[in-house]
């Protein structure tokens, strides 16, 4: 074992050990616990029940399946809105990118991404109070619409969560697509102008194909994050009304920390993990492809 080998190991092994303890241990322990009927207040009385937790939350009770459905519904709706809105905004900023002020505007626009999700939730809780919030005021004064329970009735609640989620992340999509638009070589635009193509053709034949890999990247990255969506729901709707906005991470949270049913909670966490892993594997493949594209462009 020469000095070089030791040196190389020192670069990598400490990190892996670190991760093994801090990240792998919780995972393994969660898998272990998920096979038990266990309550945190009496762990010494836990007993082995095999797959029963999974069976119960997936097939017997209606809440977790609804949570999975809700999570993906919110994810796909948000992502769709973010792509469409993000593309429109990216186009606009692309066209005015030579104006100095567009930099300022762009910077302001991306701030929501960096804010604490807890604070974002509180901000919207403040705004969406039906009788006292400013949103109601604007609706009534400028549009003549009577206030209603934005967070309290099933459909408005789902829409509100999708809206808040999209609000926070559309700038992300915009930045991504803007970067994509910037990779389109100028020659293609020149050629199109010479051919007399209108803006519609330019958009569909040149821009969209070029940024497709960026869109894909954005979709996958957002999907990973949406699966863990939690803070906004925690502050505003708490999974309600009924179970209209119950999402997977919230289900895990209240099972593990309100009811302290850590066996059942761990089972749901493992399911979330498996879903995340599948999506991440796809993401990694795509990321590697985008990187390769970048190198060749």
């Amino acid at each position: 074992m020469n000095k070089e080998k030791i040196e190389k190991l020192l670069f990598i092994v400490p990190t892996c050990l670190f991760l093994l303890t801090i990240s792998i241990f919780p995972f393994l322990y969660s898998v272990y616990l998920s096979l038990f009927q266990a309550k945190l207040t009496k762990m010494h009385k836990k007993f082995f029940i095999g797959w029963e937790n999974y069976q119960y939350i997936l097939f017997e009770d209606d809440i977790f399946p609804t949570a999975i459905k809700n999570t993906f519904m919110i994810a796909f709706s948000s992502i769709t809105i973010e792509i469409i809105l993000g593309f429109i905004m990216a186009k606009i900023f692309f066209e005015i990118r030579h104006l100095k002020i567009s930099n300022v505007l762009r910077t302001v626009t991306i701030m929501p991404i960096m804010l604490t999700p807890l604070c974002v939730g509180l901000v919207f809780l403040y705004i969406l109070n039906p009788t006292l919030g400013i949103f109601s005021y604007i609706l009534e004064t400028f549009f003549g619409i009577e206030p209603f329970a934005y967070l309290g009735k099933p459909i408005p609640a789902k829409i509100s969560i999708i809206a808040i989620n999209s609000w926070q992340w559309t700038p992300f999509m915009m930045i991504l697509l803007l970067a994509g638009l910037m990779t389109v070589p100028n020659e293609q635009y020149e050629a199109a102008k010479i051919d007399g193509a209108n803006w519609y053709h330019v958009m569909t034949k040149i821009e969209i194909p070029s940024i497709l890999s960026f869109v894909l990247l954005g979709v996958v990255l957002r999907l990973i994050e949406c699966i863990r969506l939690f803070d906004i729901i925690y502050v505003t709707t708490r999974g309600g009304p009924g179970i209209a906005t119950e999402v997977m991470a919230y289900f895990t949270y209240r099972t593990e920390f309100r009811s302290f049913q850590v066996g059942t909670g761990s089972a749901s966490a493992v399911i979330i993990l498996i879903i995340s892993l599948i999506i991440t594997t796809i993401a990694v493949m795509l990321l590697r492809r985008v990187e390769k594209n970048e190198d060749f462009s």
Partner: protein
Amino acid sequence: MKTSARKNITLLILAFCFTFVFLAPNLWMFLGAFKNQNAMFALPPIWIPDFTYIKNFTIMLSESYRYLLNSIIVTIGSTIISLVFSLPTAFGLTFFKFKGSNFLADWILSTRMLPPVAAAIPLFMLFKYMNLLDSLFALIIVYTAFNIPFAVWVSASFFKRIPYDLIEASRIEGASWLQIFLKIAIPLSKGGIATVAIFVFIFSWNELLIALFFTVSESRTFPIFISAQVSQAQIIWGNVAAATVIQSIPPILLTIFLQKNIVSGLTLGAVKN
């Protein structure tokens, strides 16, 4: 010429509108920090508050300055330690050609997949067992562990851009890996390192759930203070508004000054700017 100017103005106006939409909600809360609760919920809304009313800030800070300090310490601490662990590993994964380097990289990324909600209890047990609870140190360790996967991945993507010939040449001249790492890789990847630092910083700054469990009184962080304002008897909106302003300052500053890095960071390094 004329149509182009007109087009620019229309687009600019649209851009302003969009920017406003993304600015308004937070702006509204920030304005609320200068109002007492009656004024925060007054109708018709009070558009321009009395900016000399800083009672919310003084009350909030007097209650929470320790937590703010803790947040700053934990955030900076975990950022530094994350870099100390991740940069060498990313370097190794990129330049030590060995079998399974891709697999290791994927494994490292996958450790990020467990929802923090599920990790809280096992980690609490672990730290209690090691007697490390209620120390800022414990929090720094946990945040570092959560940050490493992302940090390794992004750093690696920046290291990949260094031409291998440079590395090879140094190796031939007899430089050790450590020397190459410190003298070549790091200086050439300053932008990437800044990117990693930003996101690790923001993650640690914003984190709530783990902090709630790992801290007792000495090490409570600022987000915990914010969440404590919400109880069944009342929500102390004055504190919430003022605290939101303070909590948002680092993210806002980082966005303004390090915008470029944010783009690459958000895409895990796949996209340069």
